[in-house]
């Protein structure tokens, strides 16, 4: 098991793990897992057995975008539809 990276190191990285994204975005693990599974949060995975990794800046922007839409009164299924239509 690898040691947890410091927040400074995470902030310098291009790619982050879901756990690190939870710390950066101050959100719940289950929420990000759900966004990922539903295709709302883009990730990269070299192999199906390897850990998913997220582009830090891109992922944080997407989380903020979702958060803003939630605050403007949109439900998650509605947001999913909007994000899918942009693809």
């Amino acid at each position, binding site marked *: 098991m690898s040691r947890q990276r410091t927040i400074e190191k995470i902030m310098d990285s291009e790619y982050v793990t879901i756990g690190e994204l939870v710390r950066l975005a101050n959100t*719940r693990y*289950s*929420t990000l897992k759900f966004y990922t*599974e539903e295709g709302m949060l883009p990730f990269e995975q070299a192999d199906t057995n390897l850990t998913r990794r997220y582009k830090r800046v891109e992922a944080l922007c997407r989380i903020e975008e979702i958060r803003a839409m*939630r*605050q403007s*009164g*949109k*439900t*998650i299924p509605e947001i999913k539809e909007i994000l899918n239509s942009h693809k």
Partner: protein
Amino acid sequence: MDLTLAERFALISFNSKESEHREVAKQNVLKILAVAVYLEENYNGTADKWNFNEKDIKVAIKKANKKALERTYAERLQNYQLISRVSSLLGCDLYFDKNIKLKTYVSNPKEFDCQLDLLKAEFLEEGPISDESIIMVWLLLESLCFFQVFSLYEQDKITKRITTLRNESTLAKALYPIELRSLWGTVSADFLRMKSHAAATETGKGLNFIFPFFERKQSIFIDTEGYFPNAEMRLKNVLDRISAQGHIYEVLRSGDVPIVKIDNVKYELLPEAIGGYVPIHGVRLRLYNL
């Protein structure tokens, strides 16, 4: 996968319920499944409105053929490959016959988690909640599954959200005051809530451990048929036994007392030895839902 409200409810609530026999918990689930079907049938898609009233809901419960309902939804989910039947975990218990005929439903772990993660993402984060999620949480509460699928922390947060929703959402305002539980069901719900809180304390944890016979299903003992020098080998032996019986598992935390998710239910695996003519070494599976 796009599932209907009733299919989503069946997927969550059928998990770990006995498939061949009648049990009180399953009967309760089937009663609420009939309500989910009724709500679905009375949904007006054009106006995006759920039409219901307490009297009609109760009539729908009475009219429903629960056995047929179970067969229909189990078969449908089986066709989608979202549910399967495996031997009950009790079959791994030292005190039960290995050829035990008890079978339980196991939902597809990925879809099961996805359905619950949606509810958590909506109820535990800021923002509006979709109508289907408002209904789903109510169905889970009325069927008492709510206390099995959410952790204590999540239960508290969702309950607080439910209280605010009663003022904010017209659907919640109309639906949440409807109570379908019998007096026995209400007592059970209160008992489950109390038990969850009590079990979260150190004393509660200990009591459940000392008196496993209170609820054998929540305290299964698996003998390891050997004494292992380290925790890893002991865990491997137990997991091999579990997977040989067709159960799906995922190790969430390793160590001396690992946490393993078996058939979508989290357990702590506590090493234990039972006294007899010779000590029998093994692990006790204790429900982990804190």
